[in-house]
């Protein structure tokens, strides 16, 4: 299982690569929460980043997680950095 850490500057290529990985989990961090994740199912977004930007309603089915939950995801999965 791989966890794709996605920020906005590399979002397009990062998400497109994640789509080629059937086990991909995606975490949107920082400006990454502005990215369009349509076509991906297992998506997470960092709470603090979502709240600052006021984009909760734009996130579709993404699960909002705090830093503690992000640490758990990092420990449980190989990390792929696009942030």
């Amino acid at each position, binding site marked *: 299982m791989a966890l794709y*850490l996605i*920020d906005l500057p590399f979002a397009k290529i990062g998400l497109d690569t994640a789509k080629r990985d059937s086990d991909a989990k995606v975490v949107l*961090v*920082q400006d990454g929460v502005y990215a369009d994740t349509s076509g991906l199912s297992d998506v997470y977004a*960092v709470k*603090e*980043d979502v709240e600052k930007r006021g984009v909760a309603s734009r996130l579709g089915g993404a699960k909002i997680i*705090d*830093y*503690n939950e*992000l*640490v*758990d995801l*990092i*420990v449980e999965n*190989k*990390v792929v*950095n696009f*942030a």
Partner: protein
Amino acid sequence: MANINFLLTEGPFQTEKWSTVSKLAAAALDKGHEVTMFCYLDGIYNGLSTQEFADWDKVPGDYFKELVDKGAEIVCCGICVNARGQQKGKYFFEGIKVGGIPDWAAFVGRADRVITL
């Protein structure tokens, strides 16, 4: 428990990477994981103990000082430190070390996970 290495390549204030990294690393330490961090390029400015900014209760440096106090190992790239005029880390927090890429390579060797921000 896991060993997590962070690579930080941007400085305080300019972008929010210092904030994400320091909070994520603090959460990892609080959960009992080991944390190492290599500050590369502008990331080395995060080691400075001399930040003063009245608008905020805490300056970015305070967060990195807390990571050291919680047991994180933080090394800043010495070439970057001197190139950026920070005189071998003369004003860095005690416990934030100046080293080289071999230290980073060793962190990666020990790490279960590697995060770049």
